[in-house]
């Protein structure tokens, strides 16, 4: 499906001449990437098992992620015994970055506001070695089923799964004196970065949806900051590239809360957040945010920011 005219214009405004390369990448198939689930198996043992199946494995920029180079049948990656046993999670490389920035540690209490289907929650639990506590929340019941199934398959034992509106859960927790060391807001978004894996995104894309989502994302980040401990970390991420859902949301948080955007390093090539968009000028700190463009690492597109609550 061809992208809508306005979408093309906006990508042109963000990338200039390079937008052709972006659109070329949207037509390419995604790499087959898996994340080793260290809660169940070591990296080396999994590599050995997969090689014994005749699969060609290649390292990636992130140690726990592996690329399957072999040609597989459709669905073969998800039907493999090793997947059923929870030895790996099929996850795009860019989507593994938000938990890396969150740096969850054993013993911490962490809120994952919009957790389903669980790729990042299972990664966070793995990084915490099943110690500490994760509250994994999602509002949609069908997505929650996928979350629960993935948590069970991956052997995650330190998580409480809740089914609530993210704004409500944050409000209730803060009111009752429950504050978090770290919060992940992997916000619902227009999904521009996922066109390669799901072409229906192009069909659904429209500017009103972006405006609606931007308003929701601002509410989400506000509620999440309210239940973050002083000096706590909030990671905000989306799989979209539109500034209204990214830099504009971070700019809003900087204007309204005592937070700062921290500098971070990632194992992927990223570009800084943009400061000017359609007549708006954002706080200079948004330059510390990271834009992951599909053409830079042959991945999906992503946006990630790390906020620290000052008090």
């Amino acid at each position, binding site marked *: 499906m061809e992208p809508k005219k306005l979408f093309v214009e906006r990508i042109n405004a963000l990338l200039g001449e390079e937008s052709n390369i972006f659109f070329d990448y949207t037509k390419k198939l995604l790499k087959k990437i898996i994340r080793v689930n260290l*809660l*169940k198996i070591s990296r080396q043992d999994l590599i050995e098992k997969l090689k014994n199946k005749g699969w060609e494995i290649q390292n990636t920029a992130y140690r726990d992620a592996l690329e399957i180079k072999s040609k597989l049948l459709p669905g073969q990656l998800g*039907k493999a*015994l090793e997947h*059923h*046993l*929870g030895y790996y999670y099929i996850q795009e490389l860019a989507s593994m970055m938000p938990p890396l920035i969150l740096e969850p540690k054993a*013993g911490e*209490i962490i809120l994952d506001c919009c957790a389903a289907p669980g790729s990042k929650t299972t990664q966070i639990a793995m990084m915490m070695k*099943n*110690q*500490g*506590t*994760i*509250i994994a929340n999602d509002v949609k019941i069908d997505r*929650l089923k996928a979350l*629960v*199934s993935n*948590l*069970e*398959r991956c*052997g*995650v*034992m*330190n*998580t*409480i*799964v*809740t*089914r*609530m509106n993210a704004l409500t*859960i944050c409000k*209730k*927790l803060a009111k*009752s004196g*429950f504050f978090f060391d770290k919060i992940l807001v992997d916000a619902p978004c227009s999904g521009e970065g996922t066109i390669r894996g799901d072409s229906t995104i192009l069909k659904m894309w429209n500017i009103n949806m972006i405006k609606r989502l931007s308003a929701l994302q601002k509410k989400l980040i506000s509620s999440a900051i309210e239940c973050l401990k002083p000096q706590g970390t909030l990671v905000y991420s989306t799989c979209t590239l539109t500034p209204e859902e990214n830099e504009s949301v971070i700019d809003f948080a900087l204007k309204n809360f005592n937070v700062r955007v921290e500098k971070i390093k990632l194992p992927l090539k990223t570009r800084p957040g943009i400061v000017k968009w359609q007549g708006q000028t954002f706080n200079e700190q948004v330059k510390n945010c990271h834009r992951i463009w599909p053409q830079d690492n042959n991945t999906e597109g992503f946006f990630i920011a790390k906020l620290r609550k000052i008090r």
Partner: protein
Amino acid sequence: MLEILKRNKRIEIENLLEKNYGIKIPFKYHLIKAGKDKIRIFTGNLPAQDLRIMNKLLTIDIIGMYFAFFKDQKLRLSFDSTTIFGKAAKNIIDLSDIEARKWLKGQDLDKDIGIRGYILLRYDSNILGCGKSTGKKILNFVPKERRIL
């Protein structure tokens, strides 16, 4: 309703775990009753008191991981529990390639292993859940979502 198992019940389960499977869990955890006979394991560091408060405050779907089915002094480990705790366990029966395929399809195995009761199944160093040996058969408990058809 959230029911965290009391100390005496928990010790009973721990004893069965060690006696039947030779498993000792090496970290702190709560055991939580889920439904009539199901037990979940939660390794989170929240004290029981905070868990109870959260239970009143939030719409909790599940806590931790489904750990075991516990009825009539018998403990049947869940499929996912066995893949985590089963590697160093006792009472493990090795399966052939054909048997493993059958087992993962959810079928019982016609296999006389000389013992009765719950056992763990292994294929190529992978633990494939818990089965019940009747003497002539091994009854299958692989959950539908883990079956490979």
